[in-house]
């Protein structure tokens, strides 16, 4: 069976003052109907660029899709016209953003905004669209939805606003929903509610979710499969259980070791030494080599490929060679 959204060998570059910088390289990801794919990694590893690329929202220029393909139900998106992409956005593939505070337009009521989103893709009257908007607000768990629909974004709390964003994103029943760190700006208690809501929405609407996060807890709760990204590449991919329980790539292992376990009495927090290298300084070797405890001469000179190692896809020479 073909995947719903299939990204193959994607390469995205940006023109910067350092010259052309490769933000994504050989990215291969797919998500099937109704499943949740988690994409994890540190800031600047290319998670959000991957999401924007799938939406066709990479600013060009300075950005450029330099190679590879993105297919939605077999339809190529990298070469699609802007008019076609506009039709797909919202209707087939939708997105919710990190900051619910700033991703709603402050001068319109939330009901108006959802109704407008509905009317972009469906031929319904304004009153009907507003009625649908109220129903959606009710669906995403907003109490007294009819009244809240007449509120402006600044009158709602962060959690409420993120619910509004979710209502807007699913208003046209998209097949793929990309959630770019949907809970980063929210309180922990609210985070759990939003994840519950996303799970519910997925069950009811049968939507595939791509969850972009750096929160391993969120991944374990939500994701069926996980892709770990580092410096613009996918370095490990497998089922969520596999990645969480027996990560292969040293970076994935490092990420999971960094999660402090409650009640284990750990006195020191673990970390991965060093930082993600600036993209314009990436050399010929593995991008993680400088921070890796397992590196050898080959890691400095040759980029590892994403290869199948039993249950895992991993891009690491050490895994390949069985070094531990």
């Amino acid at each position, binding site marked *: 069976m073909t995947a719903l959204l299939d990204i193959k060998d994607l390469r995205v570059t940006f023109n910067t003052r350092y010259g052309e910088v490769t933000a994504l390289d050989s990215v291969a990801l797919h998500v099937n109907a109704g499943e949740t794919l988690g994409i994890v990694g540190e800031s600047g590893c290319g998670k959000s660029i991957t999401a924007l690329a799938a*939406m066709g*929202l990479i600013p060009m*220029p300075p950005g450029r899709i330099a190679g590879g393909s993105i297919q939605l139900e077999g339809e190529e998106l990298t070469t699609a016209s802007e008019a076609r992409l*506009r*039709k*797909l*956005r*919202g*209707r087939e593939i*939708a*997105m919710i*953003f*990190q*900051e619910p505070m*700033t*991703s*709603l*337009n*402050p*001068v*319109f*009521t939330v009901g108006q905004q959802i109704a*407008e*989103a509905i009317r*972009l*893709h469906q031929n319904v009257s304004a009153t009907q669209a507003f009625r649908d908007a109220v129903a959606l607000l009710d669906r995403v768990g907003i*109490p*007294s939805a009819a*009244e*809240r629909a007449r*509120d*402006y974004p*600044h*009158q*709602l*709390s962060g959690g*409420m606003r993120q619910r509004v*964003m979710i209502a*807007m*994103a699913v*208003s*046209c029943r998209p097949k793929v929903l990309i959630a770019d760190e949907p809970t980063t700006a929210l309180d922990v208690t609210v985070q759990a509610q939003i994840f519950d809501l996303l799970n519910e929405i997925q069950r009811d609407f049968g939507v595939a979710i791509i969850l972009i996060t750096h929160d391993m807890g969120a991944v374990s709760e939500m994701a069926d499969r996980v892709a770990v990204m580092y410096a613009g590449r996918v370095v490990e991919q497998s089922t969520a259980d596999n990645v969480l329980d027996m990560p292969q790539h040293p970076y994935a292992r490092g990420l999971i070791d960094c999660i402090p376990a409650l009640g284990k009495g750990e006195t020191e927090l673990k970390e991965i030494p060093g930082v993600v290298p600036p993209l314009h300084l990436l050399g010929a070797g593995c991008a993680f080599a400088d921070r890796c405890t397992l590196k050898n001469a080959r890691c400095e000179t040759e980029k590892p490929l994403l290869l199948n190692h039993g249950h895992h896809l991993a891009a690491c020479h050490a895994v390949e060679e069985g070094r531990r």
Partner: protein
Amino acid sequence: MSNMTDHSAESPALEAWRMFRRNIPALFGVAILALIIVLTLYGQLFYDGDAFDVVWAPHEGPGVTPEFPLGTDYLGRDIVAGLLTGGGPTLAVGGAAALITMIIGISMGALAGYYGGWVDNLLMRVTEFFQVLPALLFAMVLVTLFSPSLWTIAIAIGVVSWPQTARLTRAEFLKIKELEYVTAARAIGARNSRIIWKVILPNAMPPLIVSATLTIGVAILFEAGLSFLGLGDPNVMSWGLMIGANREYILDAWWPVTFPGLAIFFTVFAVSLIGDGLNDAFNPKLRER
């Protein structure tokens, strides 16, 4: 649950109005402007007299004859009648010119700021071309080329004063187009035209409304200046025309020039007070929550 949200707050526009209402000088400006508008619209219903009719001896001082409380001009025309009749065209030209300024300025600035790149370069070079021309001279040339009428004057003023609005609009667009709700609008499939006019522009309006108000004041002064130089429509009484026609006799009779001058002063003053009030009302830093 309902106490989580603040229901006293209303739409951003209503909130701004609430701020504005507490601004005494701005309300004073509204009162003056309202009075002037009412007088120019309805004054002639209660005060007989054609502004162009010679009704009395020339240069009759104010208060000398009860029939003509502000006196007469060098031809013996009634000054009160001139003020009441001349206000309408003055205000109309000011308003129309401000409207034209906003239409050209917002369109140019919005397209330049939103699209960037070569569109921005092209439109901004055009804007700069208009900006470096001496405004009054350019307006004079335009009015002379096309015979002076209220419309040509309004258009000439609009054509020379839009660059400032264009630059302000462009700056607002450059700032707002980077915000997340613009990306979010694109992510639900909104087209560019919709993002420009229905997403970004409403958010860019506060400074533009302030600028529009101040433009009305500037346009009224412009109209007065053109009329003063003899480039106004000679068939329509306006405050500028009154000053222009009587300026040669200012040493013999101060009143035919002074009263229309005061009328212009109070109108522009009122408009500026309102503009300042709007500026404060839209400024979130001055707004208490």
